[in-house]
Structure formats: C-alpha cells, structure tokens
C-alpha cells in the first residue's frame, strides 16, 4: 500500500471530502496507476483518506492510502495530471489506517485581531458556543485543544483534534471573532497533521514497509 501526502489549496479547497475522493480517483486513473478495486456490484478503488476537513479550509497536509502493487516514485506522474491546487508532495510504502491514526492537526488562523485573543483557548475547561442545526450549543472543548500560539496580531497557530471527537477550526475561530467583535474575512490553512505528538510524516516514515 502506498501513502501519499498532498495539498488541497486554491479552488481545490472548495471541494468537499466526498467530491475530493472522486477527484483523486480520476487523478490515479489519468496517471495510469494500477489500483486494486473492491469486489461487488459497484467496484471502487481501494483508497483510504485522512480525516475530512471542512469545506474552504486550505490544506498542506492531506493523506491518502492507495492499495496497489506499484512501488515506483509516482508523485511526478500524479502532479502532471492533477487539477489546480492539488499537489502530491511525498510518498511512502506503508500499511496504515490514516483516518483512525492521524488525530491532530495544526492550523494557521488569519483574521484581524485573532493573534491577541488566541491564547485563552488553552485555559482549563475551555468552552465555546456555536450553532448546530439551528440550536445554540455550549460545549467544553478543552480536551480537543492541544496548543495555541500567537503569530502576530492578526494570525495564530492552533493544534486541534481531528477525526473522531474533533474540533472544527472554523467553529473555534468564528466563536472567537463573535466573542471579541472581530470583523472582516478570515482564512484557515491546515499546516501539518500529527499522530498524538508525532508529526504524521515521521510516524508514516517510521512504519514504512521495506522491499
């Protein structure tokens, strides 16, 4: 099984998780990579993605596992047939359930004034209020926040839980913007993914299968 790290920026950041699955399927087909197909009525490529990110969040650190017997370096071939904003940056040979393993992500949040207020989120028992299905919900999210740093007045870096029991970065950011009356547009980029404290790249490299 091959694991690829890829980016999802520009208009590719506007593609939903499900649609992105199709887009990656088409990339692999265009590149002529021989991928294993599932059995059954509607055979599909055997692919496994890291946990979904919200529509509109740009990412430099998405991962996909591809069940294939190919072992050669494929990133260049894939990049030659990828749409704008999708770029394959690394490749490993490893057997990992990405969605179940990668459990943290580091984001850069940009919004006027966010840098000055970000550090409160690491306080114990930290709760946020947001709207879910038309209802206002207040929830203790402290167990899903692992780090928060000011970059400058208008930017911050945070590390949050992804996968099961995740914390959506847009939800956190919108809560803070509302709480402190921060106005204007905002932007979120996923910079890196982690398995607990270990960067995902290191974790995958340590689990590589040798030939």
């Amino acid at each position, binding site marked *: 099984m091959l694991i690829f790290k890829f980016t999802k920026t520009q208009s590719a950041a506007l*593609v939903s998780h499900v649609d992105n699955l199709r887009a990656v399927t088409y990339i692999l087909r265009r590149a002529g990579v021989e991928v294993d197909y599932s059995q059954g009525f509607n055979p599909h490529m055997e692919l496994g993605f890291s946990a979904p990110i919200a529509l509109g969040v740009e990412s430099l650190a998405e991962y996909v596992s591809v069940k294939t017997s190919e072992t050669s370096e494929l990133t260049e071939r894939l990049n030659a047939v990828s749409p704008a904003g999708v770029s394959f940056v690394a490749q490993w040979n490893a057997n990992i359930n990405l969605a179940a393993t990668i459990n943290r992500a580091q984001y850069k949040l940009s919004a006027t004034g966010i840098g000055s207020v970000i550090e409160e989120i690491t306080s114990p028992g930290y709760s946020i209020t947001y709207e879910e299905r038309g209802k206002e919900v207040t929830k203790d999210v402290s167990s899903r926040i692992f780090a928060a740093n000011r970059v400058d007045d208008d930017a911050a870096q945070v590390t949050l839980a992804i996968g099961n029991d995740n914390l959506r970065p847009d939800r956190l950011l919108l809560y803070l913007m509302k709480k402190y009356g921060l106005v204007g547009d905002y932007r979120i980029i996923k910079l890196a993914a982690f398995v607990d404290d270990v960067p995902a790249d290191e974790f995958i490299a340590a689990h590589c299968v040798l030939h």
Partner: protein
Amino acid sequence: MTKLTDSVAKPYRYFGGEYNTPDMTKPADVRFCMCVADSYEVGMSNLGVRILYYLFNSIDKVICERCYAPFADYEQYLKEHCLPLCSLETQTPLSEFDFVGFSMGYEMCYSNVFYMLELAGIPVCAEDRDDSYPFIVGGGPCTVNPEPMYKYFDFFFIGEGETPWKQIIEDYKLQKTQCNVKKNDFLRYVDKHYDCIYVPGLHPAVYDGDRVVKIPETRAWRNIEPDMNTVFTPQTQLVPSMEIVHDRAVAELFRGCANGCRFCQAGFIYRPVRERSPDNAFELCKNLLESTGYDELSLNSLSTSDYSGLQALLDKLYPYAEAHHVQLNLPSLRLDSFKGQMAKGNRKSSLTFAPEAGTQRLRDVINKNITEENIFDTLAEAFQQGYSSVKLYFMLGLPTETMEDVEGIYSLACRVKALYKKTRTSAKPLRLYVSTSTFIPKPFTPFQWCAFVDRDDVTAKQKYLMDSCKKSGIEFSYNDYDSSLMEAVLARGGRSVADALYLAYKDGARFDAWGEHFDFEHYRKAFEACGTDIGQIVGAKDLREVLPWDFVDIGVSKTYLENEYNKAMCGTTTPSCNKRCNGCGLAKYGYCKDSHGNTKIN
C-alpha cells in the same frame, strides 16, 4: 475557509479549476465568455458548449471562459460585496469580454439570461448597449425561433457552430486589431457574410397584436456540419471536482435522427443523419476516458440504437471497458431496437421505454413507428432476463387524441403487468411507472400548426390515469401544465412576447426549468400587463398563415412539413430515412447520399 464558504453552498461551482482547463494565460486579442443560463451542474453537462469552448481556446490569441447562473445564495453574496458576475476561470467581469454567448438549449432558461446580464451589470436590451459592452450572442437549438428574445441579443447563430464560429472569431480578431471595428459595423458585416447569423436589429418585423404580419426580410440558414469524422471534436473534456448532472465521459456518435417522429423537434432541426465511423468513435471514447480519468462513458445521439456502427463499436468498447473499470451507459434505446444483448453487463435495474401514445392509431399519427408486437416481444425478452422494473413514457395532448387513446395507455400498462406475471424470472414484484408529459407543438415539426392542449382537457385525462393506475398498483406521474404552457409560449411566440418575458423576470422569474422555482404567476401578470394573448400564440394556426419563425431555414421544406401534417391527420406513417428518402428537402443540398446520410455529395 472564508465568509464565502460560510454563506454559499458548493462555492466550487463559481470558481472552476477543473482539470483539462485550457491555458488562460496566453496572450489574447479576443475574449469570449460562454454562458449557460442554468446552474453549473446543468451547464457543465452541455455538449455543444463543451465543443465551442475547446474550439475557441484552440484559436491563436483567443481565450474562452465560462459562466453559469448563480443560485440565490451567491447572488446575495455578489450583491452584498458589490461584485459583478464574473467568469469562472479568471474571475473577469462579463462586461469586459468581447463576446458573451448564451447556449439556448431549452426555452425555460430565458429568464436566467436576464438574470445573468443584470448581475453582470450589462443592459439587457441590445439598443441600450453601446460599443463599450460585449456582443451578446445566442446559439443552440432554441435559436430556430429566436424571435421571443430578439431585442436582447445582438445576433443569433443558428445551427451547428464548429466551422463558421472559428471564421467569425478570426474575422473579428482581424477587424478589431487592424481597425478597431465598431459594433454596428461588425454586425452588418456578419449579417452580410454569414447566412447562419441573424441580426434581429437589422431586420424589422411587423406584428398585429400577437400575430405576425410581416416577418424579417432575411433568410437565416441553419448551419449543418457535413462530416462528423472531420469536424472539430475535442478529444477531452473538463473534469470538475464536484458532481455535475452528466458526470461522465460523453462521446457523440452521430447527429440527426432517421425516424421522423412528428412530435419531435430535434428529429427535424438536426437532420440529416451524419455518423461518425466506428473507428473514429472508438478513438474518441478512448481519448476521452484516458484524458479525463472518468470511469463511466455515455454514447450520445438522438437514437443510439439506430447507429449503423453500434455492433462494431461495442465489439471494441466492451473489452476496453472491462479492462479499464469503465461502466458503459447506452441511452435513448428505442423500444423497437432494444435487444437483450445491448443490456449485457448492465445491472438489471430498470427499463425505460417511450411508446409516447397509448393506441396504434395515435402512434401512427405521430409516426412513432412502434407496434404493440415490438413492445411486448421486447418486454418478454427483458422479463425473462430478470428485469423487474419498467418505466413507460407517454404524451398527453397529442393532435387528434381522444379518451380512447388515453384508455389505451392504461390498457397497455395493464397488459405489461399481465405479461410480467407470465414471463417473470425475478422474485421481485414488478415496479411499473407510467409517466406522461404534456405535448408541446414546436416550430419546424409537422405539428407546428397544431394547438397546445387545453388545461381542462389534459386535467381530465391526467385524473383518469391517476385514478385507474392507483387501483392497479401502477405508479403514475405527470408534469405541471403551467410549465408546459409557458414552454409552448416561449417556443412558438414571436417578437410580441419579448417585453413580457423581461417583465416576468423583473417580477421574480428565474430558473424556470426547475420545477421548484417555476411560478407561472410571474408570467401571467406580465402577459396581462403587456396585453399578450397567449391563446393566440399556443392556439391552432392555419396552414397558409405566416409563422414568426418562417424566415429561418432549417433545410427541411415547409411543404414537406405540411405533407407530413396531412399524412398525420390521415394516420399514415412515413418510413425511416434509412429505408428510403422521403424528400424532406435536405437531399437537394447534397446530403443523404447513402442510406445513413453520412456523405455530402459535391
């Protein structure tokens, strides 16, 4: 994530970034924005737009971009941020292009043309646009009767565009770069040099109320590309990273249809049959699949099972598809040519047939050359193969239709049920759907003189079918009368309806092709305010009457249509063009030399 993604659903549809987008950074003297007045998902599936998009982008120093009608959330976003409607590729405002072209694929998109022009800050009336605005041009099947939209477009292109459009753009490029041509001068130029271009502003017409008294003094010829094997054909298509309506590779096998069903406008305005060779078609399929990565392929035409090279093509396609995990879709299988082998490898899900009318008498009137024997032989074969779901499509309001014909629909459905009981091999109960649409007599068909059915008449027939199907466990559905009525007005109207269409848009009409958005009330009010008599427009016409679209020449003679009308009234059928030449008029232009109409004699 930004405020855009918070407030707008699926924003990808407004920004593009599809794989196979041509180079948008090359130097350009001419910029064309190709629009479909419907959503991204619908517009992206349009084959004609796809062809012209790649054609324009293949021309030196010409760039073609795209734009589709935004939904209300993005309209709101644009307004809140004081942004004009922009092209997807480079986010350039539509008003900055040299040409803004609309594909007029169906009449119900007209209100969205106003919607898009106004969002782009472009005056909707041609006479209010000076040289600083782009040419607003229309193409596609609806332009065989362009009159309802005459005052909003600078010119219409009628027919197939591949060869003339390339030359028109080259001409414009030359005149723009060499002498900075004025809009009116270029319009006079194309009016004179291209018989497939109609410039309504140069050709007045006279109306008495909603009756045309004098049609424009010009002849607009529907352009016909003679040879499918050499015509410009993109060997690729855009691959969007979100799902669209026809989300698959689509290969066009042939144009035209030999059957001559009298109700079918496409059957007349796309004549004659011009086939791609099976080898050419297979190469096209392969290139499309390889360059897009799609795992699904559709063979596109008006009647795929009539394709003379179908067996030769499938012999190559089946093994290729199996080896490459590609699913084949074979649409528009006519009932009389459905064969068990054609459904080979497909899931035994559902069969869709369109007998169109419930009795043989009425099928003869409309020249749907299918007999009950064809229907039941085919179904028996299908049921034996394990099919357990059947959809039957009919039309209500056909010329000469009586209650007996409507009872024929129910009786046919009951006999399908009985046949299933006898021949079934599936354990599943039969799912039988009967669906009726309301017949719209369209220009350039033998029924163009016929009236659109009365509301009470069709309502009674729908109620009969609803009640009887319910009793027999047959699922019945029908379409909304008002939207068919509106489509009839748009298809058959002349210049007299133009003002009302804009007024209806101002009152809120848009996305009329979408059942959930269409509201006839906007149009009712507009027709009332303008004094439009829609009864006159959708009513029966005299054979000697001048029709608003008579200045358009689709190559099929009016005499032929009249003969077909008379034959219809006698219940006499006309054989397929594959069997013999019926003399529709196209042969005299050098088409239809052999039975498949593939070769142009010169």
